[in-house]
Every structure is written in C-alpha cells, then in structure tokens.
C-alpha cells in the first residue's frame, strides 16, 4: 500500500484517532450514567444494594480491562449475533468506567459533611430533595478534578480495543508499523497523538483541583 512512513501514514493515524475519541465519548457518557446510579446505590440506605454495588465495584476494579473486553466480546457472541468490535468495546469500557466513576463519585458524596444531610432533613426535605438540592451540587464541584483525571485513564484504556481488532489509533499504528517496517516512527507518532489528547485534560484536571481548593484525598 505504501512503502514508507510519511504524511500519508500520519493522516491515517489521525483518521483512526477519531474512533478513539468516539469510543472514549461513548464509554464516558454511558459509563457516567451507570456510574451515577452505582454511586447513589453505594451511598444509599439499603444495605443490600450497598453491598451489591460495592461488590460490583470490587469485581470490576479487580479485573483487567482486557478481560472485561474479552468477556463482553465473547459474551455478546453467545446470543448468536456477529459482534462488531465497537459494540463489544463500548460495553466493556462502559462497565469499566461505571465502576471507577461510581467509586470516585461515592467518595465525593461521602465527603459532604453529615451535618448537611441533617440540616436538610430538619427542613423536612425528602431524601431525593436532599440529594438534588443540597448534596449533589456540592459533590459535583468536588468531583470535577478526579472525573477529568479519569477521562484521561479512559482514553488511554481505549487502546485495549485494538486487541479485538477494532481499528482505532493503536490498531492503525500496528497495521502501519507492519506495512512500513517503521515501528519506531509509527508508535512514537501514535504515542504523540495520545499525548495531545490526554495532556491538556491532565493539566485541566490539575488546574481545576487548584482552583477549587479541593485536592483529591490521597
């Protein structure tokens, strides 16, 4: 197709990076929605639901993304349909981000002083009103830096989708490296594109952290 690593290859890499961005966006949106539910269950009143959501977090955080991906890929195939890699990757990364975001947001909700719950309860607010008007707005501010930080992790983890042959940035890099026999230039270019995607977000997360004066508890 082409013998050397040049602008053509870089254009192909940039086009493939769109899939990386799309996959990250999908997993972040869906995983965010699911993670919100996980965080609410994890901080909720029912001990059974709290135990279940804690187990979910523990199991997903104890499994490599690659294994989640394989389980999703072959699990969906059991239903008998031909699985597009994008679908399997979206499912796996949604599960992945729901557990991590759920745990991050649980920490944010828990870090709101109990007195805030008590004060709002004394105003005869229902539990949902307490969450909606008192707790979540405060927790949201605290959650911004770690959430943006996690987005960086998510973007980097989409590279794993290359291992089920989804042609995103890393997979395109492999294909080009094989075609041009220039693995060094190719993978450094791939790394640079990831860097350009991730570095501004990392910096943004740090800026948010400083500006809000709510350093992540480490």
């Amino acid at each position, binding site marked *: 197709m082409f013998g050397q690593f040049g602008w053509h290859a870089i254009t192909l890499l940039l086009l493939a990076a769109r899939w990386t961005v799309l996959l990250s966006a999908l997993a972040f949106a869906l995983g965010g929605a699911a993670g919100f539910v996980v965080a609410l269950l994890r901080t909720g009143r029912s*001990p*059974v639901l*709290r*135990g279940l959501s*804690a*187990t979910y*977090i*523990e*199991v997903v*955080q*104890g*499994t*490599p*993304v*690659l*294994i*989640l991906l*394989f*389980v999703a890929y*072959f*699990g969906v*195939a*059991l239903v*008998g349909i031909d699985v597009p890699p994008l679908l399997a990757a979206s499912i796996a990364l949604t599960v992945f981000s729901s557990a991590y975001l759920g745990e991050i947001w649980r920490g944010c909700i828990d870090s709101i002083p109990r007195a805030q719950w008590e004060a709002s309860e004394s105003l005869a607010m229902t539990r949902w009103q307490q969450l909606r008007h008192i707790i979540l707005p405060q927790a949201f501010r605290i959650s911004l830096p770690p959430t943006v930080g996690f987005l*960086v992790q998510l973007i*980097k*983890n*989409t*590279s*794993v989708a*290359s*291992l089920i042959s989804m042609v995103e940035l*890393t997979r395109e*890099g*492999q294909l080009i*490296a094989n075609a041009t026999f*220039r*693995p*060094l230039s*190719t*993978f*450094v270019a*791939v*790394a640079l594109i*990831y*860097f350009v995607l*991730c*570095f501004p977000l*990392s910096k943004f997360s740090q800026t948010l952290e400083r500006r809000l004066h709510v350093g992540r508890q*480490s």
Partner: protein
Amino acid sequence: MYQFNFAPVIHYLPKLLAGALLTLTISSVAIALGFALGVTCAVLRDNGPSPVRMLVSIYVEAVRNTPFLVQLFIVYFALPTVGIKLTAVEAGLVAMVANLGAYAAEIVRAGMEAVHRLQLEAGAALGMSRLQILRHVVLPPAIEAVYPSLTSQFILMMLASSLLSAISVGELTGVAQLLDSLTFRSFEIYAAVGVLYVLITLLMKAAFQGIGYASFKRWRRLRTGPAWSFAPLKPLRRLWTNGRDA
C-alpha cells in the same frame, strides 16, 4: 440455546494457575523496581539540578499521558530497530517498570510535599545531611501518607500486566488466549480468568495491608492503619451487628 461448559476450565486449571503465578512474579518484580525508580524520580524532580528536573518531568508526563499498550509496543517492536533486542518477558518488565516508575514518582512527590517544612529545619538543626534528612525525615512519613494510593497503583499495574499477552508472554491472559484457541470455550475461560484476577487483587490487597502494618510503626501503635475488612461486606455488616455501625 448456548450450553455453558466449564469442564475445559477445570481440566486446564493447573495451566491457568501457572499463568497466574507468572502474573504474580512479573508484577512483584515490576512493583519492586518501579517503586525504587519512582522514589528516585520523585527525589530528583524536587532536588536534582535543573536539567535533570526537566528530564524527569518530561518522562513522567510522557508516560502518564500515553497508553501502557503503546509503551509496550515501543519497547518490544520499536527498540529492536535501534539495536536493543529484548525477549517478550524482558520487554514487558521494562515497560512495566518505566510505566510504574512515572506514576509512583508523582504519588511519592505528593507525599513529600505534605511533609511540613519545619520537619526539614528540625532535621538540619540536628546536624543531619540532606541525604539523611531525606532518608529519615522526609521519605518515611511521605510514603506512609500515600501508601494507599501507591498500593492501588501497584494493583493497577498487576492488572495491566494482562496486556503482556499482546506480545506473547504466557502470563494469565496469555494462557487464557492459548486455551481459548484450543477449546473454543472463550466465554467460560475468560470469565474464569476474570475471577482469578479478582482473587489475585484481593490477595495483593491483603499482602499490602500486611506489609503496611509491618512497615509503619504508627499503624500498630496508634491503630491508625486501615481495618482488616472486605469492602463489599462492610455495608452488609449492619445486618449482623443490628445496625450499630454504618
């Protein structure tokens, strides 16, 4: 309707366990070396001459903002083109150490920043050298303070070692891929491997907690260390403690 069949998993369990052992071995070596590299980088980034500081910063940011898989491909596929040939296991280890070193550096540095300046002055007043202050005054409380973040990073590294299967290392995931191609029981095998990874994670968590108690006197004397518990069971504890603690 699909019939689940876990017989191949049970039949090949010894192979899977051997893979799990390799995962543990590689991870342990990478964690030990990566931690040492991380502490060195954290110290250099704050105390070294300015070109060294800049180099360390570039290294840390470059690693933290690119995927581990790409780093692995660079070490395994790209370094041979400049004359550095490594076996798959060696390449995997190099990539893991380089990756963990950058994350550990950032975490340890946060811990060092949390040590009060007066502690340094007190050390200097006792006539300690800079190296002695670092060794006896700064690092111990710094590492104790960030120990939980550090150990979660170690566990993330162990999980990331599954990517070594992409360069044909026969660790747990590598064995799983082999068995998958032998038996075609993909779902069952990967589900079982997922369970094994969760078990390894729990094992490592317990081990790090033990190491923490052995290393930090304050945890033992003042009981400030984490309680021995399994997170998912914590909320359920109310059921048998009759709601006495949350």
